[in-house]
């Protein structure tokens, strides 16, 4: 890609990405927020995480089709990860269990 076009694209991508990161925190951290807004914000983490996770695990091939059977490796690897997370509350341990499960599933496909 020629460097002029690339610089233009990079500049534009930087502006729109950085603006979305900096503007709300700059404005909202200087305001006194009403209780309903604080309540709403308190639900955002759980909502965002599930909104990102559900399609990633249940529609892993990106085609928009639900895959709910044993052929869905993401779904299977999620189970030991979930159990480990609930029992130990340990982030690194939970991720490790999931990654190892996934590696085993890939090594012995089917």
């Amino acid at each position: 890609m020629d460097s002029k076009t690339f610089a233009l694209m990079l500049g534009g991508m930087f502006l729109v990405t950085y603006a979305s990161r900096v503007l709300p925190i700059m404005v909202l951290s200087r305001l006194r927020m009403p209780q309903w807004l604080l309540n709403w914000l308190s639900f955002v983490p759980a909502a965002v995480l599930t909104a990102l996770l559900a399609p990633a695990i249940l529609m892993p091939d990106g085609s928009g089709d639900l895959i709910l059977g044993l052929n869905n490796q993401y779904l299977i690897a999620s189970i030991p990860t979930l159990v480990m997370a609930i029992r130990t509350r340990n982030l690194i341990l939970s991720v490790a269990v999931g990654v190892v499960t996934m590696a085993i599933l890939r090594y012995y496909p089917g």
Partner: protein
Amino acid sequence: MWSSTRTQSPRLQLFLLGVQSAIPIMAGYIPVGFAYGVLARQSGLSLLQSTAMSIVVYAGSSQFIAVSMLAGGGAVGAVISTTLLVNLRHLLFSASLAPYFRRFPSPVLAFLSFGITDETYAVGIGQYPDREPRGAQVLGLHLASYLSWIIGSCIGAAAGGIVGDGARWGLDFALPGMFIALLIGQIKDGITLIVAMLSGLISITLARFHSATWGVIPATIISAAVGVVFKQWIQRHSP
């Protein structure tokens, strides 16, 4: 874990605490960054350009979308407007962090907010309510994640065609696995559980019609609003 802490200043300790909490993120960013680097080279960007995008933009999903659009002959304007739409979810992260970052002066806030991603947000928001964050801790988390993304994409771009696939080692599950563990940490009561399930349902429904990233914003806004209404209703109807 950091046994020599007695000789370190509290600020360095906090920084290292932040770096430590970034370990699962780094385990995900290096292979995912690698995959981005490989794709970026295939789309016609140079090694320098591929790495520059990770340094300047630092947003995984939009970088993947950008290079796949470029590979398909997409125009610069289309790439930028898609980046804007894909990154709108940062607005939610940034807004949700605001109550914990009140004490930071504006320049610090402007600097630290560059490092907000899906993953640094999720790890951070799991810790901040228990202990108000200090700048050094946030810096450690954000900087370690940022550097691992740059290193991963640079190596991937350098490797170019020689594709070693991290998926063979299950590393493509590192980020979803981390989200699962972080979600469990967020489910503190029944209302939050209902909000989460509703959000997943909406997200999946929308993902059936569009690509998965589009559903995140409406799913979050609607389900969190339902949570607010539900919470007020319960407070009003309890003695």
